């Protein structure tokens, strides 16, 4: 349970991290909060020969909001993000999701970007990014590029980052004032990875029609899945019971879970159906009762 030997390098900013990645190639790994990478190394399931520590960088730790978006730097600690008022009011789904992400001590050290770059299909932050159609900004030797969340996550623990690119930040659309949000998560114990998670954001206009519906599921496919079909069915409607139930069935039709020790594929499908309906109903209640 000790990691194999490696060479340690500390980068002082994102540009230096990119240079080091370029120099060492595929053998190097970025070390952010270490909450996913270090366990893998201690199990010897990951054996990078060089670790590039970005904990000393200063250009990747920030939370900024403007009229349309929230931008969060990759090195922002999850616990800081969870408690940040600017982030919470712009994108209330973030703190709601982070409350399910590991335990306080993991979030104290774990970073926003680390969870995204690790790309566990059952992790909360990737699911939030996919649900809300976030965009990720990555930096490589020849500059920055922006990747939509649905194109960033490719497979379990696989992203579209090149070997010499680093995740700088992610941008999320600000949710309209009063948007109701809900995270429904099935896990054996609080803080465990989700067996199935569903995240929903719903906004009803003054006529009681949904002018914003965002839903995604985690733990049920090789990446988090945006439930486009269910969203389309619900958008513009009054979100009545029959509509919600039908959308939940459509949601279950659009994911492809596999069997594992935590649950069979058919169980997960059933849970998607149940949790989508629950998440939508709770998000509506959340909007109606106001954020407390």
């Amino acid at each position, binding site marked *: *349970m*000790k*990691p*194999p*030997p*490696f*060479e*340690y390098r500390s980068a002082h900013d994102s540009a230096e991290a990119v240079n080091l990645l370029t120099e060492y190639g595929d053998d190097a790994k970025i*070390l952010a909060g*270490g*909450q996913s990478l*270090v*366990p893998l190394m*201690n*199990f010897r399931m990951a054996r990078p020969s060089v*670790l590039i*520590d970005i*904990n000393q960088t200063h250009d990747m730790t920030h939370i900024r909001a403007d009229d349309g978006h929230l931008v969060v730097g990759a090195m922002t600690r999850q*616990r800081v993000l969870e408690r940040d008022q600017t982030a919470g009011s712009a994108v209330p789904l973030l703190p709601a999701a982070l409350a399910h992400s*590991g*335990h*306080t*001590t*993991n979030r*104290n*050290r774990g970073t926003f970007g680390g969870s995204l770059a690790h790309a566990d299909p059952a992790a909360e932050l990737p699911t939030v990014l996919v649900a809300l159609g976030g965009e990720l900004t990555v930096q490589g030797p020849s500059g920055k590029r922006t990747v939509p969340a649905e194109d960033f996550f490719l497979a379990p623990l696989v992203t579209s980052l090149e070997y010499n690119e680093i995740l700088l930040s992610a941008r999320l659309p600000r949710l309209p004032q009063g948007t109701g949000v809900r995270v429904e998560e099935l896990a054996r*114990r*609080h*803080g465990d990875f989700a067996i199935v998670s569903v995240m929903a954001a719903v906004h009803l206009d003054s006529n009681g029609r949904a002018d914003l519906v965002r839903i995604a599921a985690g733990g049920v496919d090789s990446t988090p899945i945006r439930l486009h079909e269910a969203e389309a069915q619900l958008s513009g409607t009054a979100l009545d019971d029959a509509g919600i139930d039908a959308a939940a069935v459509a949601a279950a039709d659009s994911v492809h879970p596999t069997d594992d020790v935590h649950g069979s594929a058919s169980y997960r499908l059933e849970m998607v159906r149940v949790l989508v309906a629950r998440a939508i109903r709770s998000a509506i209640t959340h909007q109606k009762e106001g954020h407390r």
Partner: protein
Amino acid sequence: MSDKHTITVTVNGHVYTDDCEARMTLADFLRRQCGLTGTHLGCEHGVCGACTVFLDDVAVRSCLTFAVQADGARISTVEGLAEGDELNTLQKSFQEHHGLQCGFCTPGMLICATELLRDNPNPTETEVREGISGVLCRCTGYDGIVKSVMAAADSQRDGVSESGSIS
């Protein structure tokens, strides 16, 4: 192959300078180089929480941080909780309310509970359960631990009202 570093850390107010391999965890550095074996290692992969310490005032799992990353940092461990020879309020409360049996998880429980009470001096039972949820205990069934933390919160409050100020 072995990548050696010399680091300096301040642990419970004492300065330690020593060599370590890059792969040495902060937990092993504290236990071996500093001789502070109060920090326990249960799983060494971030699940049990027994190894929790304060790194620059933030409670983290010391099996998931490398010692070289802590160069220049301020650390407190369970050994730093007591006030001289006297157990502090939280430790006394664990003793009084059966907050421990074998004691293996206790260093992690105490550090997590210290952070919880610092950030939320008036926690509900649910908040206490959530606050310690990152530390596994195989003995107590958690009830004694929850009682201990709630009782410590009570006595801290009484202490505050008696002296009329927050120290």
